[in-house]
């Protein structure tokens, strides 16, 4: 079982991201389950969404308290939410930022993790460029796919095309591809270091 927790704000597509991830994993022959934690559904309010991926059918219905991977769509959430709750030292972390984790004050937290499993990607900027809207969820999935290998980029792109029509879908696919490549590049840097 591989568990993913996605933290975002209302409007950033955290719930959609978890759903797309489950669809991508399912398409690759695995079992998956995505579900949200609904709070007050306001634009900008903290949102948490979850996705489980397994080789066996999933019958469990409880929130994910010990994720294998975290996707953080907005790092300023750290002031409101215990973003890193339950993540183990082997966990993966994808953070949406054009800055560095140190500059965000997350350097110490990220130190708890294996540095080769931590990546940042400027997903909002990528989305603005390729989708025309600052919605970072899909590029972050591209980044997640590159970092964890739990799903392929192709499966993510298929799920995106299935969900979003025509140009919206294609723009998001390009955004996912760009973020995916950027993370592969970061991982190559880690490997060289």
């Amino acid at each position, binding site marked *: 079982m591989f568990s993913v927790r996605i933290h975002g704000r209302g409007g950033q597509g955290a719930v959609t991201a978890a*759903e797309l991830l*489950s669809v991508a994993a399912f398409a690759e022959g695995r*079992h998956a389950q995505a579900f949200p934690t609904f709070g007050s559904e306001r634009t900008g*309010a903290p949102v948490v969404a979850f996705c489980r991926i397994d080789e066996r059918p999933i*019958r*469990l*219905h409880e929130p994910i308290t010990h994720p294998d991977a975290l996707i953080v769509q907005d790092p300023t959430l750290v002031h409101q*939410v215990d973003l890193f709750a339950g993540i183990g030292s082997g966990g993966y972390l994808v953070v949406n930022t054009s800055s560095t984790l140190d500059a965000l004050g997350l350097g110490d937290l990220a130190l708890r993790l294996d540095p080769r499993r931590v990546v940042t990607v400027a997903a909002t900027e990528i989305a603005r460029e390729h989708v025309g809207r600052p919605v970072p969820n899909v590029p972050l999935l591209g980044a997640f796919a590159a970092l964890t290998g739990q799903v392929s980029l192709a499966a993510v792109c298929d799920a995106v095309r299935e969900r979003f029509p025509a140009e919206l879908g294609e723009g998001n696919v390009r955004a996912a591809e760009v973020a995916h490549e950027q993370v592969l590049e970061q991982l190559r840097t880690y490997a060289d270091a």
Partner: protein
Amino acid sequence: MRSQVEGSQAVARAVTLCRPQVIAAYPISPQTHIVESLSDRVRTGELAGCEYLMVESEFGALSACIGASGAGARAYTATSSQGLLFMAEALFNASGLGLPIVMTLANRAIGAPINIWNDHSDSMAMRDSGWIQLFAESNQEAVDLHVQAFRLAESLSVPVMVCMDGFVLTHAFEEVDLPTQEQVDAFLPPLVPQQLLDPDDPVTIGAMVGPEAFTEVKYLMHVKQMAALDELPVIAAEFRAAFGRSSGGLVKPYRTDDAETVVVALGSVLGTIEDVVDTMRDEGHCVGALGITCFRPWPAAEVREALAHATRVVVVERAFAVGAGGIVGQNVRDATRGLPLEAYDVVAGLGGRPVTRASLRRLLDDVLAERLDPTALHFLDLDHALVQRELERSRHGHRPGPHAENMLRALGTVASGAYE
């Protein structure tokens, strides 16, 4: 075809395949996605020959279904929580008149305090309304139960409520095997109404009945609902033969054969409980689980049989009777009268609080170690300190104020913390 879809979409598709002729509904979370999707399917023609009525209230929704059903149409509605309460009067009419309406109930807590999240307070509040109540463990079962519900409703001319946990199931993307139209058509023949408002052959549906026959009409209602205890297993067996998977029926025993301790529950928590049972079995504990698929009518004989060899029964339920105790628990005691077992009533998962493996494990460890008082009502994961603080406050202030707000203040809560 197997697909990865949201529970609400899967149910909307299943209902579409059942070819309802009238859908009357009013949106309320967490049921909204279901009726939104159905209205779309009517608009696009995917669901042909169906009139979709966006009514002014839940009372209107069920009333319209009653009229449609009386006129011989296959009628469907969906609601949640306060919406079901707003239907209360019409619920009793639909069942009293013996109209085969099918409803999805996306289970949600009842306020006050206002709360949009899942528990079973809504269905339990209406458990004696004369509707058959089926509870889905997964989105697959929710889909399958809807197909079976129409068959059951129309074979007995009784209304059926399919209960599925709000958000936990309705908003979850899970793998679902959706049947084909041909499969459903073969399983569910067109409705042949057992009573019909027809100008050429006039009858009164809803005659006033005085003391001379009221008891007899009600008695028949009871007999007809009890007949579902025979009918449901037959329908479930036919379903299995036609669709190749087990769904529905009355109860669902899981590793109960030699179990000394059995957890009884309804709905989506069963999967979590089964995971806990497997873990404890691996450690050598003789535990099992009993899922109640059909809560109304109450399958007393099947529950008794499934629990006959248990020494401890732990009823975990997402609702309770304020001032009395467990609701499912009372029914279980009734079914197991005279058996040498201890029954524990545990209220869990109210208002969207997750029922986790960790909490269930702690509970079962307490039960096995005989640390739990079988005569008391227990609340899983109750924050005793929070309650004590509020009681203390109330003792000292001349106007202590509303408990709900006081307790939120004491917690310094924000909605974002809800996943913890």
